[in-house]
């Protein structure tokens, strides 16, 4: 007597690949055709050829923006700290502030050298390290 399978049984047997290709039962045959179609990609999905290249370029751009924002943040913190320190000195210990003011050229030169080193670090070293392609 021909064994009648339930939908659940047929699906389980097909998942376990325990049904012959020569099976003629109509329900099984319908499921076999369905499974074949399910395993194939839809014909209306096309992936652009340069998609991965485009993604890599977008990622590089985003990374550069992130580094730029980070550098600006640090510069702002450093400059604000220096400014606040000087302001603090002016109000809390004016004689020392005026003493330092006599050597303002030295301090300005030091700050410029420090910022130049930071900028060189970004442009010559870190930028090269980041996102080599």
């Amino acid at each position: 007597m021909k064994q009648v399978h339930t939908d659940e049984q047929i699906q389980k047997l097909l998942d376990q690949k325990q049904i012959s290709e020569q099976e003629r039962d109509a329900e099984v045959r319908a499921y076999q055709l369905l499974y074949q179609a399910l395993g194939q990609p839809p014909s209306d999905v096309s992936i652009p050829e340069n998609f991965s290249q485009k993604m890599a370029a977008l990622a590089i751009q985003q990374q550069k923006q992130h580094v730029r924002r980070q550098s600006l943040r640090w510069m702002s913190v450093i400059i604000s700290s220096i400014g606040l320190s000087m302001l603090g000195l002016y109000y809390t210990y004016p004689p020392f502030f005026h003493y330092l003011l006599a050597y303002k050229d030295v301090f300005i030169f030091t700050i410029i050298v420090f910022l130049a080193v930071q900028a060189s670090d970004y442009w010559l070293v870190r930028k090269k390290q980041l996102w080599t392609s």
Partner: protein
Amino acid sequence: MNTDDALLVSRVIEGDALAFRTLVQQHERLVFHMVHRITNRAEDCEDICQEVFMRVFQKIHLFNFQSRLATWIATIAYRTALNYVKKEEKHTAHTLNEEMPMASKELSAQQTMERQSVHEAVHQQIARLPVHYRTIITLFHLEEMSLQEIQTVTGMPEGTVKNYLFRARKLLKEQLQKQFQQEEL
């Protein structure tokens, strides 16, 4: 832990653009299929896939190898696509179209043409399934993920995944039988 995935991920974190491009190439098919199936919008597919991979790039340092890299990326694709669908708030047909025209006798007489018609009919019907059904069908049959992996991607209990998979396939089989003559299958 897959050592190839581990090497690829560490190179992407270090800033290797070629590694990121390789990662995209390896997983673009998975992401495109998922996004297309979930959103049912071919015209927005590329933009959404771009968003998925940008999120992958931003969060890759958080990937801790608890699952396969493909499973982790599929999770991001699933959530991104689902958010898009919710935002759009468009009516999607949740009932199957029972009025699909029958394939012509002339076409179904040729086995090759019949198989092409079956393929197209099945994919048209998948688009009409509820979003969770078509997601699970895609992940199980097209991307060959296990039920546990699908559970990880979708956040649904394994029992629910099994149940949805069974019901989706049963619905599609019934539609297939209605569309094509039983004896011609």
